[in-house]
């Protein structure tokens, strides 16, 4: 179920320079939302900017009927969004997209986020911890100050590992390198440690395209599987315009186009065809 709602802003906070957490009152959306889904958000009332902007659902509070978004100011649309204050109305369309598949058993679960990619993973990790399932969460950013949600995710009971480009905290390097190092250790995300175990795992990834491409390679090299949330420029957000095409394997050695908005944004690691 997806809706067009004129939602009231409950509050908005700058959580880090240029990054905002926006809480909306939208009970039906909160009730319907699943982790990995997104809202298509109208950022202004004029024709410039014209299109909505896709923003992942960061978390919901079904009791209060609230939906929260966590976003980075990337350009004009998000800049306009960041000026909203409590009481303002914002036109949102959603929840849209397929969302992450929650693990059925007790798999060894990794969540790997680059930068603002943590936004939808947080919702996923909440639901996961509701299932009493622990994940190993790898967060990457340029520097320590740019890591978001670290404490919140720890509070959910997951193990958090950090990577920064400048080494100001955690591993110095990319979060995919860190994943690659860690994936080789025989440590299960539930905390079990068995040096003889042949490790396997299921990876949930979200972040910039270049990072996800590397992540998919690393996942496959390690014999793991998983799913990643892709981004593409969107028009309609609901599958009608075909502007958000991504390539997936067609099973015959070639590719076919799918819609990030409707068939995704989450796709199996094995299916994505990278340019």
């Amino acid at each position, binding site marked *: *179920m*997806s809706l*067009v709602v004129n939602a009231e802003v409950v509050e908005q906070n700058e959580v880090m320079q240029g990054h905002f957490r926006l809480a909306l009152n939208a009970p039906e959306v909160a009730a319907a939302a699943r982790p990995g889904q997104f809202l298509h958000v*109208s950022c202004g009332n004029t*024709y*410039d*900017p*014209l*299109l*909505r902007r896709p923003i992942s659902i960061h978390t919901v509070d079904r009791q209060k009927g609230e939906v929260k978004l966590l976003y980075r100011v990337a350009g004009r649309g998000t800049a306009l969004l960041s000026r909203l204050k409590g009481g303002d109305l914002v036109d949102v*369309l959603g929840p849209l997209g397929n969302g992450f598949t929650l693990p059925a058993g007790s798999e060894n679960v990794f969540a790997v986020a680059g930068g603002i990619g943590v936004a939808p993973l947080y919702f996923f990790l909440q639901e996961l911890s509701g299932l009493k399932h622990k994940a190993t969460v790898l967060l990457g950013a340029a520097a320590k100050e740019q890591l978001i949600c670290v404490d919140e995710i720890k509070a959910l009971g997951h193990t958090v590992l950090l990577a920064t480009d400048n080494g100001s905290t955690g591993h110095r390097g990319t979060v995919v390198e860190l994943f690659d190092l860690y994936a080789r250790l025989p440590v299960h995300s539930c905390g079990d440690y068995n040096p003889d175990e042949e490790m396997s795992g299921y990876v949930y990834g979200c972040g910039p395209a270049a990072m996800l491409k590397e992540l998919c390679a690393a996942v496959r090299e390690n014999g793991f599987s998983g799913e990643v949330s892709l981004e*593409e*420029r*969107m*028009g*309609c*957000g*609901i*599958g*009608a*315009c*075909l*502007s*958000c*095409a*991504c390539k997936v394997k067609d099973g015959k050695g070639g590719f*076919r*186009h799918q819609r990030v908005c*409707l068939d995704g944004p989450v796709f199996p690691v094995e299916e994505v065809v990278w340019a």
Partner: protein
Amino acid sequence: MSGLSVKVGGITMKNPVTTASGTFGFGPEYAPYIDLNRLGAIIVKGITLEPRPGNPTPRLVETPAGILNSIGLQNPGVEKFIEESLPYLSGFDLPVIVNIAGETVEDYAGLAAMLERAAGVAGLEVNISCPNVKKGGMQFGSDPVMAAEVTRAVKANTAKTVIVKLSPNVTSIVDVAEKVAEAGADALSMINTLLGMAIDVKTRRPILGNVMGGLSGPAVRPVAVRAVWQVYREVKLPIIGMGGIMTPDDALEFILAGATAVAVGTANFVNPRATVDIIDGIENYLAASGVQSIHELVGAAHNNSI
């Protein structure tokens, strides 16, 4: 017949509002947001004889009050369309207009013939803004003679209403309209997108995967209204007007310029309920201004100008 009802060729529409091809998928995408039965007609995504994978991404970029797109006619091909999409649409009380595109005159003829045999098609909208591969990639729609040729080929293969969709990227849209009318078109639709492009100053590359794309949205509305205005004066065929219609007033602007019906395109992306909001708005305008029938408004701005 209600005051909102119009006829485009042989197609009776319960109101003058339809959807612009390529912006409304094949229907089901918008069904969660509106009752499709409310539409005057539906014009579906452009169909080709064979399936087409479409262009590389990015396929869309926002521009001031507009968007550039280069989808590249991604579609499942006419056979799959007939099998999979037509049955869905037949469940509605809604004239279905199929937008067809080809690379040769024969493609268009073939599409018309196949759709003539299919149940549930009310009319064809002929997209002539496609490159003619036999003429070095020159667009059918850029030449009145080629445009007429395509029109004749389609008419020869169908008894359904044939609507030819004109391109604004021409020196004289009236010349094309006249030749297409002579060739037997039942109606015209206009405008298709304006040819445009955008370059990313950071990467110093064209943004669209396909370099150039089609401009649509509010930005183009003045060009579209002008095209309808000019053609209405010279050609006696019903016109489906489109290009940047976002509000009931925008739709009325096209009707006053001479459009019998209007199509809503890019607006659907901004507001999935745009079509029904526009239908409601037109109805209110008629009521508020005491106009009995929308026909009184078609082309009315011509009477009021010098």
